[in-house]
């Protein structure tokens, strides 16, 4: 089991697990950068996905790169920085097509309320997301 984080978003909290076994260097960089606090917007090419605009020192190589993403996935995009949270149908894409990316974590538990609030971002604009270690640090 990977290290656990808590994600505060729009007045609610969900738990996430870092995939330390599959993306050890990236997860370590994220863990060391916690707490991460910033604004989240919806992406413009990739569907139901939030982008958290924060800076994480970039690891030297991509790990656990996936072409298909699923609701609950936490992604790190080398060269773009920040984190992505998938909350529905989504695939990381750009103007040049699909863009394989490292899957670095998973949100755990019932995501119904998270999804409901994430869908509002398109209409209401950017919302704050804070990612902390499970113990609050």
């Amino acid at each position, binding site marked *: 089991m990977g290290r656990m984080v808590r994600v505060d978003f729009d007045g609610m909290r969900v738990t996430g697990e870092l995939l330390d076994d599959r993306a050890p260097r990236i997860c370590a960089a994220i863990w060391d950068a916690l707490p991460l606090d910033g*604004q989240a*917007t*919806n*992406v*413009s*090419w*990739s*569907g*139901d996905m939030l982008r958290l605009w924060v800076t994480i020192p970039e690891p030297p190589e991509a790990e656990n790169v996936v072409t298909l993403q699923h609701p609950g996935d936490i992604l790190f995009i080398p060269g773009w920085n920040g984190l992505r949270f998938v909350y529905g*149908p*989504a*695939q990381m*894409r750009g*103007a040049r097509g699909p863009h394989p990316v490292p899957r670095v974590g998973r949100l755990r538990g019932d995501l119904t309320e998270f999804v409901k609030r994430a869908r509002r*971002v*398109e*209409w*209401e*604009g*950017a919302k704050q997301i804070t990612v902390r270690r499970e113990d609050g640090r």
Partner: protein
Amino acid sequence: MWEALPYEDRVTHAKWSGQMFHTNTPIDLPAGDGMPPFDIESPCAFQAPGDVVYYRPTREFAVAYGDAQFSWHTGTLFVTPVARIEDDLAAFARKADELIWKGARRFVIRRRV
């Protein structure tokens, strides 16, 4: 479209199509003939900045303000080009990009008099 003007709605930024925003209140415009997906007027899969397009299945307009291609999770979709913004797009594009950060905004298309 001309007959339906003025048209006013709240627009939101595209989630699959790049630098593009779209309307959310369906508007009925005449359909074309033929077999899907070519049963619309002038089916087109590419947009340039300033293009205004109509997507019949959801009866919405979309406006490209930069790199954009009208798409959904199924991939690129055919749309009908219905207008082109001919003025300088720079200020317009800055405003459109703010939709990502600020959320839905008012949008009006009316006849130029």
